[in-house]
């Protein structure tokens, strides 16, 4: 594989980790202060959706326009 693919490979992984960590962390904090237990699941969904959207914008949509 060429280096551009290798770069994209690790960047996709970083985006997924970042999205889930960020929004799950926010969800856990909200749960901690409001004494609830479902915000972490909502955060997980938002994190997954936002990181997949970012990957779509960055690697899939631009590439198919070329």
């Amino acid at each position, binding site marked *: 594989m060429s*280096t551009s693919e*290798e*770069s994209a490979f*690790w*960047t996709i*992984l*970083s*985006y997924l*980790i*970042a*999205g889930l*960590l*960020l929004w799950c962390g926010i969800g856990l904090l909200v749960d901690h202060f409001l004494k609830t237990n479902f915000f972490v699941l909502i955060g997980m969904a*938002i994190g997954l959706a*936002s*990181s997949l*959207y*970012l990957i779509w*914008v*960055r690697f899939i949509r*631009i590439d198919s326009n070329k």
Partner: protein
Amino acid sequence: MAQPGFEPPGSGDFIFTPIFGNSILATKPVLLLFFSVILISAFFIVSSRKAAVVPSKLQFAGESIYSFVRDGIGRDVIGHEFQRFVPFLFTIFTFILTNNLFGIIPFMQFPTMSHIGFPVSITIFVYLVYHYVAIKKHGLGKYLKDMCFMPGIPKPMYVLLAPLEFLTYFAIRPLTLAMRLFGNMFAGHLLLMLFTLGGEYLLGSAWVIKIFSAISFSLAIGLSFFEMGIQCLQAYIFTLLVALYIAGALADEH
């Protein structure tokens, strides 16, 4: 048979007491680190001292490692400005490679990078370098703006994506860089230790079970060669990713 149960190796086996004195600088990983620096310096000084047009075997070995890093990683990834970064990449590559290979050399048998402190300190250097390069080239404001706000998506989406990009560049990238090297070395050393200690434990059992001990030892030897592949690959991947991050920092847009 009354035998004590088998104790699997754990993270406690990675903690060493000082070989002499009380200082933390006298433990095995730190001594291996110093030894690797001496070894690398000696090798490249000796191999490049009598540089000739028709190279000797030693000079050929040294030059092929150098040209691998310069052409294979530096020039292909960074592009026309690569010459500035070749010493940095070359130092990282040889340093990590030597320290990883200590994991399978007999009597040393400890990859220095399986202590989290060493990959983290290398990563801090890399972190400073690639952000410094980017800020020097684009200026702080433009760098952050290019990083967080890319063109071509609807405005409300920036709320969702800008913190994500920021977190990726400033936290997740260096974190995964350090964790990947540490995790690979740690798990590999644990695996080798498990098979060796398990074989040794089975040796003290009844004669039927001694056959399994032989299997365990031969697996340990086979996995050592597998580990050698992983150690070289991790050094290469670490250097390649450093080059990719520098190339990303130098690029006109992210």
